[in-house]
């Protein structure tokens, strides 16, 4: 699996990740700036960023630290918000598990929403193992370094970015564009609609539980629908 051989896959991963960075920049700036506003030292914000490597969990932790929440509550919230990584981990397992531990662990550390979004597309999943690994690595390393730089920039710039630009809104838009790529048939469309609708309805649930519940409902609906469809096909045979 030498770099020379799979250079193309690596650079394709880098290239595909670049447009996603525009949405990450404001998120990183906000994460950096908010940490300073909260009274953390630049070292603490940097350390937190490296240890978490998860923006939404970091922002949630800020909020709870500010609210003087209990230690256990902050830890639990972080885990719940990051539970989605277990889903990503399952999707990436066939690609990353065969690697040696010294590659597998750092690559698992770099797993993000964006990397998952890129690598879970059917087109990507059908590529050979080394191509998939190098493609993932290309995207993940760009994402990883850009995220840390964006947070540090946020630490330096502080809160002087006009909030009325609402640049953070480009994050859900990026996920929406990725979503379109994964919807290849009617069952998957049904899954997306159910999951999205329930995520909105269950938003008020505490600890971000609505997110996990909506994903489970969406998958459940899709599972039942594909079973019914298969049974329907049997009837006509």
């Amino acid at each position, binding site marked *: 699996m030498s770099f020379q051989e799979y250079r193309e896959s690596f650079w394709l991963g880098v290239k595909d990740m670049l*447009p996603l960075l*525009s*949405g990450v920049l404001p998120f990183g700036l906000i994460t950096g700036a908010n940490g300073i506003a909260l009274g*953390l030292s630049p070292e*603490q914000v940097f*350390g937190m960023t*490296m240890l*978490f*490597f998860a923006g939404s*969990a970091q922002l949630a*932790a800020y909020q709870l*630290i500010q609210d*003087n929440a209990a*230690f256990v509550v902050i*830890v639990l919230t972080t*885990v719940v918000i*990051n539970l*989605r*990584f*277990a*889903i990503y*981990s*399952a*999707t990436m*397992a066939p690609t990353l*598990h065969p690697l040696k531990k010294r590659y597998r662990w750092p690559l*698992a*550390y770099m797993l993000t929403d964006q990397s998952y*979004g890129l690598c879970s597309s059917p087109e990507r999943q059908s590529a050979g193992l080394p191509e998939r690994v190098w493609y993932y690595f290309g995207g993940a390393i760009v994402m990883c370094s850009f995220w840390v730089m964006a947070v540090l920039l946020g630490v330096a710039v502080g809160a002087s970015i006009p909030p*009325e630009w609402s640049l953070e*809104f*480009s994050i*859900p*838009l*990026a996920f*929406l*564009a990725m*979503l*379109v*790529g*994964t*919807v290849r048939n009617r069952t*998957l469309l049904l*899954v*997306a*609609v*159910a*999951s*999205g*609708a*329930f*995520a*909105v309805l269950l*938003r008020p649930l505490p600890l971000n539980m609505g*997110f996990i519940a*909506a*994903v489970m409902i*969406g998958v459940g609906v899709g*599972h039942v629908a*594909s079973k019914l469809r298969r049974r329907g096909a049997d009837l006509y045979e």
Partner: protein
Amino acid sequence: MSDMTLWLLFAICGLLTFSIRLSFVQLHGHLAKHLERVQPVLALLPPAVLAALCIPPIVLNSHSAAVDWLQVMAGLVTLLLAVRFKSIIWPILGGMCVLWAGRYFL
């Protein structure tokens, strides 16, 4: 919270987050049989996760938690452009332009 407690908090949260990321990647060999059985379900996960991630912050206003029609419009434009273009930069730019134009003119 004292500095020491904060660092302990960051370390524990970081360790747990890494463990979640590593979970299936590490145990894949032992779970291979089960994974095969749940493969049809796994195939349903990407649209479910991505929809649950993006629909609420587009539909609901982050301050008022009410339906924000301008953001919904921006999302629709992004959706249409995403069907048309393969790169995701145009859908994002299109959606952001709707948001900015809407805020400016409305």
